């Protein structure tokens, strides 16, 4: 029997990932106690931080699920055969609510973000030079305290930025959960992966149709 290793993101995408996998016939077993690995029906499940899922898949874990933001930021060598029907949000430029400025005029701005690569690419594609402050979380604070002129971050409901007197000024991109496949697994477990992608597509189209 083929065994499949799967990296699932601990955090906000975990429950949706488990539901999605269940719908396509894969039951995820929660790890016992504080363990980070579980086993079920020939599957091994790893539960790394969402930001590390592509690293695991690049380095030999067969498949994984994480946000497209993480894949773009990490730029690991993995296949991304499918966008998944959950984890929808957007990455945006966020400003203090009393500031009016278009992103074209942000030359020289200090931008705080968890996503320095995406931010750098976005502004350099627009021909703008900005200073990027890499933070590991709670980036809203950087705009509130004034150490940054703007922030680039994920926006879902928008409640957090509103609560911090900030506003979404410009959408950089839409974000979604994505399926990742190790490049060698695509070859060595070709039939399994194609079957998985077909099931996922059918499920996704069913969701769209409703």
């Amino acid at each position, binding site marked *: 029997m083929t065994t499949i290793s799967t990296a699932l993101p601990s955090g906000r995408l975990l429950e949706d990932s488990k539901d999605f996998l269940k719908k396509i016939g894969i039951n995820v077993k929660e790890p016992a106690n504080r363990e980070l690995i579980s086993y079920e029906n020939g599957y091994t499940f790893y539960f790394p931080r969402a930001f590390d899922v592509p690293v695991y898949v*690049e*380095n*030999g*874990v067969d498949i994984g699920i994480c946000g497209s933001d993480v894949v773009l930021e990490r730029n690991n060598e993995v*296949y*991304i*055969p*499918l*966008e998944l029907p959950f984890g929808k949000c957007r990455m945006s430029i966020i400003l203090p609510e009393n500031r009016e400025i278009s992103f074209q005029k942000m030359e020289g701005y200090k931008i705080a973000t968890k996503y320095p690569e995406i931010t750098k690419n976005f502004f350099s594609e627009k021909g703008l030079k900005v200073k990027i402050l890499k933070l590991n979380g709670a980036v809203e604070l950087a705009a509130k305290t004034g150490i940054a002129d703007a922030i680039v971050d994920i926006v879902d409901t928008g409640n957090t930025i509103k609560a911090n007197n900030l506003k979404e000024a410009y959408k950089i991109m839409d974000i979604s959960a994505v399926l990742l*496949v*190790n*490049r*060698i*697994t*695509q*070859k*060595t477990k*070709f039939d399994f992966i*194609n079957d998985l992608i077909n099931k996922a597509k059918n499920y996704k189209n069913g969701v769209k149709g409703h």
Partner: protein
Amino acid sequence: MKKDIFAESQKLSNIVNKIRSVLIKHDFYELFPPSITKYSENLIKGLKFADGRNFYLLKPDVTSWLIDMDKVEEKEKVFYISEVLDENLSGVWQFGFEILNGEEVKIEEEILRLTIEILSLLDIKNFFIDVSSIRSWERILKAVPQYRDKILRAVELRNFEIIENLPLDEEVKLSIANLFNYRGKETNIPKLNTIIKNINDPRIYIDLGTMKYMNYYEDVVFEIYSPDNGYLLGNGGQYKINGKYSCGMALNLDIIGEMMR
């Protein structure tokens, strides 16, 4: 703690000596590529730097350097050992072997036979080699040049959704789907069928979704991999140097070292 450089070098040396022995037996000679070359946009990888007057590359990809030299006249069978750097100063030790100015199909077959012989001598048996044809994609890419980059991106990610979302004729999408998902022993590409038939090894497959990203490859490309490791053991393909038909393979010595552990 520093790595044990002697133990590391001894391990690498054992691997390299075995590969060398196979290639010398088959009339290859060692080529010594320079560490630093003048920058050219045709060169791939390497670390770019300047001395105030000129731009240079430190340890670029050797095949692209050979092509850029443009100096092949006779048939040459060469091998080289080189650490190839990327722009982040991260290096990979490569063992490359190339047949320059050879006969079409024959040299692809010779490169594949040598690869199998080398891996067998290194006691790596659980491997596969995928063979593909860039030209089979070129026909489609030329038909819809405005979507070339998007199609290549879709192939690179193996993401057929990108193709489905393009405003292409259904017939074109179907052709792309057929290439995307084709993996087997026989195709409508005579050259690949000949290679597979003549090599006659159950570990060699045609996988048309395998596309090589190096811009110098012309048609046939290879990828070597193993279910025991998440990385490619090597890759290669066919190219031309000043119009001379050539073909080569580069083995990733770091991954081969891991496989032998």
